[in-house]
């Protein structure tokens, strides 16, 4: 670099920058108000839609001139470390949407359409996809976002709230977003992490023969060394105090391919139960290591991210007898899955590359997620009319979602999906789980719905939500004013 010319240049650049800065500030001040309509995206998304539309072979998606469509933007992930979950979930989701189109011609006459954008479970990719998909598709407004990723959901909280787009984090996400007063657009449907451990505790109590029997018992939580893994530590401590059992939290560093030390510790501690809050490869390795150290698999209880076939099969024989929770039993016998088979799969339109995985845990999660989204749209249509709805209107639909057994029967999802009733203040609803056991081949249900002590958890959640509101300067909604 021949530097002797560059001093003067620098002087010039400094000046230029100064002027520029002023110009920018001024521009920024006025530009900040307006928000131009997307040119690039509008140009690009139709193509994208056709693409993944035809990929998903959705007749509606590729139908031109759609004036009467409701759009589902799918931030899917089909590659990378968590692809197994993504393909299953979004496969089930898409297949259910296809079913609704094929069988009922959409929701209240409004066709459902969707397009995919690969996030690879990476936060900024998810953000990029959100920004790309949020304008909707050929004028079809987007109903709700379902990123199935805690990280992405977090990054979307502010954006979605300003853009008025519901974010569905079914069975996961930020616990305190249950408080809809502070998080108007975030929906940790069915089960937040706190409810999860609470319900697990109740199940253990049941197995031990009553809550009072918990006293003096030893329980270990083996958790993934990540925010997700640590999230339930405080709640478990509270529960332990309440019921008088001992709890030991043991961390497995990401990714969790090595757990020798942890399981030796567990063996030394001699707990009666191990709650496994695993993630990806950590789960099979946990089961393997448990076997290595002679801990019985049927006293390990996997949580919502340790409960899929993909989590057990790699462990082979070591997985036999392993227990796990679920909000949506695996299997294809449920009428709704049969319907999907009849109207979608049998017509060769199924989204799954591997048809064997239809009815798997992740697939069924996708299906019930589809049901909940569609039901929310239907509910909203009752109020706003049978037309494509904005995110804000769909939000209302979610907040007034109320699915009872009767409705579940109509949906053909009795036993697959739990009763769920949301409200302005409660964005979770269900809080119930069932337990399944791995027989070496597939999951067998071993319990009916078991509920969490949601009243016990509520204050903790509200406290955390209030803290967040304070941090961000948010004034919580007054739900009595919501209609």
């Amino acid at each position, binding site marked *: 670099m021949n530097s002797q010319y560059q001093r003067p240049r620098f002087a010039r650049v400094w000046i230029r920058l100064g002027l520029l800065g002023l110009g920018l500030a001024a521009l920024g001040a006025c530009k900040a108000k307006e928000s131009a309509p997307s040119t690039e995206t509008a140009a690009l998304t139709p193509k994208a839609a056709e693409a993944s539309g035809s990929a998903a072979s959705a007749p509606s998606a590729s139908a031109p001139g759609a004036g009467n469509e409701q759009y589902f933007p799918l931030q899917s992930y089909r590659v990378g470390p968590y692809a197994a979950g993504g393909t299953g979930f979004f496969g089930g989701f898409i297949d259910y949407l296809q079913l609704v189109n094929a069988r009922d011609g959409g929701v209240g006459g409004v066709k459902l359409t969707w397009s995919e954008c690969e996030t690879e479970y990476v936060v900024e990719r998810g953000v990029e996809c959100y920004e*790309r998909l949020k304008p909707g598709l050929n004028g079809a407004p987007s109903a709700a976002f379902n990123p199935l990723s805690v990280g992405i959901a*977090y990054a979307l909280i502010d954006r979605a709230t300003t853009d008025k787009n519901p974010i569905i984090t079914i069975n996961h996400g930020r616990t305190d977003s249950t408080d809809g007063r502070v998080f108007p657009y975030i929906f940790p449907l069915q089960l937040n992490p706190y409810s999860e451990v609470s319900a697990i505790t109740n199940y253990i109590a049941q197995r031990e023969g009553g809550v009072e029997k918990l006293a003096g018992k030893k329980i270990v939580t083996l958790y993934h060394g990540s925010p997700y893994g640590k999230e339930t530590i405080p709640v478990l401590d509270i529960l332990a105090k309440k019921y008088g059992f001992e709890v030991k939290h043991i961390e497995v560093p990401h990714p969790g391919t090595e757990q020798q030390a942890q399981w030796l510790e567990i063996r030394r501690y001699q707990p009666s139960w191990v709650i496994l809050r695993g993630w990806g490869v950590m789960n099979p390795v946990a089961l393997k290591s448990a076997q290595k150290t002679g801990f019985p698999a049927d006293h390990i209880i996997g949580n919502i991210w340790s409960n899929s076939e993909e989590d057990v099969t790699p462990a082979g024989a070591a997985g036999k007898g392993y227990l796990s929770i679920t909000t949506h039993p695996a299997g294809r016998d449920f009428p709704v899955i049969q319907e999907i088979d009849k109207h979608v799969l049998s017509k060769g339109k199924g989204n799954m590359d591997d048809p064997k995985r239809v009815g798997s845990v992740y697939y069924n999660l996708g299906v019930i997620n589809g049901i909940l989204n569609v039901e929310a749209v239907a509910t909203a249509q009752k109020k706003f009319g049978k037309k494509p709805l904005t995110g804000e209107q769909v939000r209302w639909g979610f907040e007034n979602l109320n699915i009872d057994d009767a409705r579940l029967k109509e949906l053909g999802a009795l036993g697959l999906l739990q009763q769920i009733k949301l409200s302005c203040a409660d964005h979770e609803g269900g809080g119930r789980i069932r337990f399944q056991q791995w027989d070496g081949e597939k999951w067998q249900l071993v319990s009916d719905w078991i509920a969490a002590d949601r009243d016990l958890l509520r204050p903790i959640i509200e406290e955390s939500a209030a803290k967040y509101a304070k941090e961000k300067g948010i004034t919580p909604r007054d739900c009595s004013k919501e209609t």
Partner: protein
Amino acid sequence: MSRRIPPALALLLLALAAPLVADDYWFNAILIPFFTLALAGLGLNILTGFAGQLSLGSAAFMAVGAFAAYNFNLRIPELPLLASFALGGLTASLVGIAFGLPSLRIKGFYLIVSTLAAQFFVQWALTKFAWFSNDNPSGVITAPRLIVFGHDFSTPVGRYWLTLGVVAGLTLAASSLLASPTGRRFMAVRDMETAARVMGVPIFRTKLLAFAVSSFYCGVAGVLWAFCYLGTVEPHGLDLTRSFQVLFIIIIGGLGSVAGSFLGAAFIVLLPVLLDHVAHGVLEGSLDAGNLENAQKLVFGSLILLFLIKEPEGLARLLTVASRAVAQRLLPRNFPRASAPITVLTATTEARRDLFRKWRQS
């Protein structure tokens, strides 16, 4: 140096023009991450490209910066936003110095162990100690409102201006630092440590300084990442993968080139999006999302190889070559070639001969 300025100006002009055409999507998904990553790349380039110390810990320093700024901002309410940016960067540079200490003894690839240790330790510490994330149950921090001099920069455009301002300022400072005696010390250490030592370059202090400055830049990039881009960040979001991403930026852009950091960042940010759009458009979905993504991985990897094989000095070099070609056609004189005849030499030799004669007569 001279080859760095025109791209810089071009960039500034582009940046100025951007808001006239760009929309939310471009700000939120392309421009802001581009400038943020470019800054991180610049940070790493100072350490690796200029001072020759290979580092795989950039993301860790970004994380430190982000969490530090968050906590300063949270716990000292009256602190102005930009001040917390700076403090975030300074904290990062302290951590950087700490993990730079081994560079006194450890050289070459062995040194990556130090930065990798930083990478994993920082991530662990930030997840482990809830205090860092203000006891957020999920250990995630969320950005405060971005108010600078009473102006609210929270809108996409606002965040863009804020990012642009910070990045532009720091870039200028970096270019002038790297053209200064300090910058030459960095490069001396990189090119021939022993020679530098016998010339009185304080090797250890120079290396530590490189670590400090580099981490400062990465730290501020981390703050922008958390505050201006995502509005939130969890330790896992700034893991080894990110460090590699930053490394790719400077490899593709050009080691030891300020402009390269920007070119590389542009490449890294735009390529996936571009490939995605192209694939959707051209292949008309004959490929499902999964394979599409794999295809992207393949293309990306191949491009990296292509660069290393064809143009090891990166995009920056390509640009220079191009501009040289143009310039040479326009004003051939300004570019002395290495093969220039050594006329001066004989002249000076003559001069010396006279000198000797005088001296002998005396």
